[in-house]
Each structure stands twice: as structure tokens, then as C-alpha cells.
């Protein structure tokens, strides 16, 4: 019988981008079992509802995570608006959709870069981050900040984008698309990249469904779960189709994210063409009294915001359940039976966002 070792991976590791810790039980170079451990960045944000007004809390929700920042405030504002019965104007819905899709593009391009760094292709990492800059410049010109946007509020949005700027955004994204196709050609067709990614980290469709996989990890195994089909914000007026692959390994997840980025660029083009004129917010009076579960599709999967109020200015309960929390059991299943050298690669293909997970 071979000798078993326990190797700790993380929270500080040269290749691991997030502070998550795994204890890997290995036999020679093969992983037998994995035990995850979190709570390195727990900030207790859910108890902050006792101290901050429900309108100010949209700013706290923005700061749960840097990459998924806009989607968190979108989910929170939607939940409060549904409880209070506020009707958000159409122009605000379209603007929210455009910012949400821009968030998805920049998050996926960032993931492409970090994944390339994980398997050692550093120049590809630099190229991907260079392509992300135009999207961050668009954020700065339309909202004033690059990462934490602070632009969604209960009742609408805080800033407007005029129609000339919308056309400018679509043109710049078309230029970005041409550059992106060159980089994606390397991810899809290069021999060494294929060798690192194909056949690694396989999960079957039944296992993915039973363990609660979400987001691109589930869609790469053949499950068509995409919360945009529910129709929140302006998605019910747009042509959304979930991007699905069937291979179930790291290469399929990479393909899903690349195709989702191109699909997002197309959705922005559709939304910019259809944005109507009108006001961008409504006045909010009163306080929420009731509860609601709001579901939004983040770049990493389905996020649930639960808000409960009892009529006072401070909320009674606020809970966020992020997709990474739900993907961790699936990842333990994937790690069993893989090689130790592939472990950072596999953890990255799930796209963990630990600061969301632990709020």
C-alpha cells in the first residue's frame, strides 16, 4: 500500500488567486481526498444591516466583492424593490443590463488571464489583462470608478448614459472583439494549452446536478441552468441563450466562458439599440415590509439575495448565497483522482470568489 501524505494548499500560494485552503490527502502524485477550509476573509457584512439604512446598504452590497460588484448591488436593489412594489423605469432596466453585461465581460477576460497564468503561459496573461483595460475605461467614463461602480440604487440608477455614448461603447466593443478573437484562438487551438486542459477535472452531468453545481461549471457539463432566462431587468426583451458544452472538463469550461464573452458583447449591442427614452429613477418613500428572494446570474453562477424587512428603516435580515459556496462540494469531487500538479488549474477553472463566499 502506498504511503499517504497530507499536503496543505493555500491560502497563500503562488498560483492560487483566492484565500481558500485545501488539505489534500495524496498517494504518490495522485489526490485521494480534499478537505476545504474557508473563513480567512470573513467580515460579517450581514450584521451591518443593523447599523446602516436600507438605502445606504446598496453601497455596502457593492463592496462585497470587487469582480462581481455591480451584480450584488443589482440583486439587492431588485429584492428591496419587489418587496416595496416599486416600478423601475424602462431606461433604468436597460442601463442596468448594459452594466451587468460589461461586468460579465471584464470578469471573464480576467479569468482567462489568471487561468493562463496558472498553467504557466505568462505572456498570454499579460495580453488578456491588456484587453480588459478598454472595458474598465468604459466603466470610468460612464460611472466614475473602475471597479466599485456605486451606480445602482433602490428605485433606478444614479447616472445616465446618453445615446451617443451608447453608440461609442458598441463601437469600442467591436474593436475589442477583433482583438479578443486573436487571443481566444490561442486558448482554443494551441497545442500546449490543449494538453494542459483537455481531460483534466472531469465531472459528469448527473454528479454536477446532484452536488449543486452552478454557472459555467454546470453549463460545461451539459446542464442548461442560466438565471437570465427567468427574465429580470431587461433580459426578457433580449435574445438570451445559455451557452452549453458537453465535455465536462477544464477545456469545456474555458470554451463556455469564451463563448459567453462574445454573447455578452452581442447582448450589449442589442440592448443599446433598444434603450428607450425616459427617467432613470423613481422616488422612494417608506420602508420595506416583507421578504423576497432575488436571483441574479453573476459571471460565476446564480446568486441569491434574501431580504427581510419589518417596516423600519433598518432591515431585519440580509443573506447572500453566492455560487462559489455551492460549487465547493462539486470541486471536492473533481479533485479526487487528479494529479497534484493539476490542482491549481482545477481550482481556477471553477472561478472561486472567496470574498463573496464569506462576506
Amino acid at each position, binding site marked *: 500500500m502506498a504511503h499517504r501524505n497530507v499536503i496543505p494548499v493555500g491560502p497563500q500560494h503562488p498560483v492560487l488567486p483566492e484565500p481558500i485552503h485545501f488539505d489534500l490527502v495524496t498517494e504518490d502524485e495522485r489526490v485521494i481526498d480534499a478537505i476545504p*477550509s474557508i*473563513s480567512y476573509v470573513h467580515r460579517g457584512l*450581514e450584521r451591518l444591516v443593523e447599523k446602516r439604512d436600507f438605502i445606504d446598504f446598496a453601497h455596502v452590497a457593492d463592496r462585497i466583492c470587487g469582480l462581481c460588484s455591480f451584480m450584488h448591488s443589482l440583486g439587492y436593489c431588485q429584492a428591496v424593490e419587489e418587496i416595496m412594489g416599486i416600478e423601475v423605469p424602462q431606461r433604468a432596466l436597460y442601463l442596468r443590463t448594459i452594466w451587468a453585461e460589461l461586468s460579465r465581460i471584464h470578469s471573464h477576460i480576467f479569468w482567462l488571464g489568471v487561468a493562463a497564468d496558472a498553467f504557466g503561459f505568462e505572456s498570454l496573461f499579460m495580453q488578456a489583462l491588456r484587453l480588459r483595460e478598454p472595458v474598465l475605461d468604459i466603466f470610468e467614463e460612464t460611472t466614475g470608478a473602475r471597479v466599485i461602480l456605486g451606480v445602482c440604487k433602490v428605485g433606478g440608477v444614479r447616472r445616465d448614459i446618453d445615446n451617443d455614448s451608447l453608440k461609442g461603447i458598441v463601437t469600442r466593443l467591436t474593436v475589442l472583439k477583433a482583438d479578443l478573437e486573436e487571443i481566444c484562438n490561442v486558448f482554443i487551438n494551441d497545442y500546449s494549452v490543449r494538453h494542459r486542459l483537455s481531460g483534466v477535472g472531469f465531472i459528469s452531468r448527473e454528479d454536477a446536478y446532484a452536488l*449543486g453545481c452552478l454557472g459555467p461549471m454546470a453549463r460545461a457539463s451539459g446542464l442548461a441552468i442560466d438565471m437570465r432566462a427567468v427574465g429580470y431587468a431587461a433580459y426578457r426583451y433580449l435574445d438570451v441563450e445559455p451557452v452549453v458544452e458537453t465535455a465536462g472538463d477544464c477545456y469545456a469550461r474555458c470554451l463556455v466562458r469564451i463563448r459567453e464573452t462574445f454573447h455578452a458583447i452581442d447582448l450589449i449591442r442589442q440592448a443599446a439599440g433598444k434603450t428607450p427614452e425616459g427617467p432613470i429613477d423613481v422616488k422612494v418613500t417608506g420602508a420595506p415590509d416583507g421578504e423576497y428572494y432575488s436571483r441574479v446570474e453573476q459571471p460565476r453562477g446564480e446568486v441569491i439575495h434574501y431580504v427581510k424587512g419589518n417596516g423600519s428603516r433598518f432591515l431585519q435580515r440580509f443573506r447572500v448565497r453566492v455560487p462559489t*459556496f455551492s460549487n465547493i462540494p462539486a470541486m471536492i469531487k473533481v479533485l479526487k483522482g487528479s494529479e497534484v500538479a493539476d490542482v491549481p488549474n482545477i481550482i481556477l477553472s471553477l472561478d472561486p470568489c472567496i470574498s463573496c463566499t464569506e462576506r
Partner: protein
Amino acid sequence: MSEPQEIEAVEKCDLVGIVAELFSEGYRLVQIGCSTLPSAYELTYSFDREYRFRNLRITVTPEESVPSISVIYPGAFLYENEIHDLFGVAITHIAVDYRGTLYRTALGTPFSVDNVKLPEPPKPKAAVEKQGVAKERAEAPGTH
């Protein structure tokens, strides 16, 4: 757009039976959440199948213990460990039990009934049209 919210209150003894039935119908586990009430905890189990969202809700006192559903849904162990660490609810027979070391915080169970201060609902106004709403709020379990 508003999703219909289906929240059913169930008894603690029926919980595992209903969850097994949902599993065989093909529902996936979405989340297990917990809220602090003035002297009890309210656990909500959420399930989804083809975008239909259903919730089961049980109410427990701080001394009671809850059976785990990780025999049916293996991915539930993380949610149940989190509820045990943050709220202090005892959950029995979890598949992978961290015994209180998943969340290491300076204050023991930060969200438990002793540590959370719930907001008071607003005082009912004297206006006639608000009296109906005010009566509902006074009876709701939000008062301290």
C-alpha cells in the same frame, strides 16, 4: 417582473421526508438559510427545478436540534456547518462535520439570539387609513 415566492411552513419531523420526495422529483438544493427571530431561529430550505423556486421553512428554539439532510443532498454539509457556527443551532449527523471550526470568529456565535439586535417596527401612525396596516405590524413577531 416578479417571481412567485412559494414558502411552505413544515414541521421539523416531516422535514426529511418532504426533502426526500423533492429529491426523487428531480429538484436541486439551492440554499439553506437561517434568520434570527426574537427568541427562535427560522431555517429555510430552498429548492429549484427548471426555474421553479420552492422553499420549506421550519422554526426551532435555541435548545432544539435539527436533523441533517446531507444524506440526501451531499452538498448540504457546508450550509449546515455554517448555520451551526454562526447561529449555534445544533444539527445532527452532518456528512462532513467540522465541529465548529469552519468559521473561526472572535465572538463565538455572532448571529445567535443573544448577539443580534433586531430593529423595532415603526410606531403606528394616528392616521385612519394606516390603522389596518398598523394592527398587522403590532401582531407580527418583529417586536422586541
